[in-house]
């Protein structure tokens, strides 16, 4: 029996929503347009489009191999052996790991990471004047999605990616929280979980090294 367009596209959508590589089909233009629209809707759940560290490492390894870069004296990073702690630190850590080498330092509370990328630079993300006490400001660099908060005069940057499933958090200045739109998880402005709709307690948000320079908040990112 011939499959209808609706059935064929439904099969494609089923693979997409399950995170699988969709099976290959021969589609008409109308079907292709519907499939393309479906692909765009998948990432409307914010954060799903962030690559995991293993994926970045495989891309990097392919580039090394295909471009013969080892022969030119470049050394493969040790990212693979560090995957285990990256899983706990969440997707933002993964994004910060682009260069592969990230060092871990102890942060304010147990279980909370501070991300210190080895090949990093300080980048301004907000003017101090735009960030009075009780205010926050989201930022995105090439690799990191974060938020800077002013907690009673203390300015600190945090990863803005939920440590549960990688959704992008929404800053809420009224409650001084970062709310996850996906599963009702909330973090306070130190990065600790204050409320969670998931069965286990997600890890705290990684802090991002922050400094004030010439009236700007700068963060240390790759």
């Amino acid at each position, binding site marked *: 029996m011939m499959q209808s367009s609706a059935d064929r596209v439904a099969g494609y959508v089923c693979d997409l929503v399950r995170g699988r590589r969709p099976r290959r089909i021969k589609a008409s233009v109308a079907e292709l347009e519907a499939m393309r629209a479906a692909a*765009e809707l998948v990432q409307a759940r914010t954060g799903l489009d962030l690559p995991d560290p293993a994926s970045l490492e495989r891309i990097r390894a392919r580039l090394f191999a295909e471009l013969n870069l080892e022969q030119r004296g470049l050394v493969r990073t040790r990212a693979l052996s560090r995957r285990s702690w990256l899983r706990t630190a969440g997707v933002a850590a993964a*994004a910060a790991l682009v260069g592969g080498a990230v060092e871990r330092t102890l942060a304010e509370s147990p279980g909370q990471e501070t991300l210190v990328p080895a090949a990093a630079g300080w980048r301004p993300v907000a003017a101090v004047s735009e960030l009075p006490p009780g205010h926050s400001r*989201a930022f*995105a660099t090439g690799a990191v999605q974060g938020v800077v908060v002013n907690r009673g005069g203390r300015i600190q940057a945090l990863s803005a990616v939920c440590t549960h499933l990688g959704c992008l958090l929404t800053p809420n200045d009224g409650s001084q929280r970062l709310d996850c739109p996906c599963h009702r998880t909330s973090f306070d402005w130190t990065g600790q979980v204050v409320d969670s709709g998931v069965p286990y307690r997600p890890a705290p948000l990684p802090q991002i090294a922050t400094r004030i320079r010439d009236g700007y908040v700068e963060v240390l990112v790759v």
Partner: protein
Amino acid sequence: MAGEASTSAFEAGSVPTYTEWEEVYRDNVVGMYQYVYRRVGNAPDAEDLAAEVLLHTLRTLRFPSPVRNVRAYLVKTAKTVLADHWRRHYAAPEVVSDELDELAAPEPTTWEPSALAAERAQRVLALLPDRFRTALELRFMRGYSVAEIARELGVTPTHARVIQYRALRKAAEVGRDLMP
């Protein structure tokens, strides 16, 4: 900031410039992955295609190279690679290349953060007729199966698949109208 070069690249002169492949990789791998992911909607394909785009670009580049030129080249390459992906794996023989190029559009001028891209998808949903919007929200945002959507809408599963298909066709049309 998204769309800017690394600190070291800025030091090369007044025009932001990449001096080695590592800078191009570091600055663009996540943006490129996201760009491709938003157009294919799954991680395995996004990984393969992002690697393909970076590989092709890095093979072609000569250093030093202005950041702006490298970005433009990356995006141009991504468009070609995506059109080829649709052609090789999904297009029936009668689909012509202009139609495939359309599927790879629109081009970004800079790497877009997740929140912005997600917002655009939400805008598309908001502009759909109620029944279409409900079907797609349940399927894509809340993870309902087709059978569950059928129950929710009071229709048969076959009809729910038809509604999903029509809703996606409409979303494609609305998305085209929203393009800058």
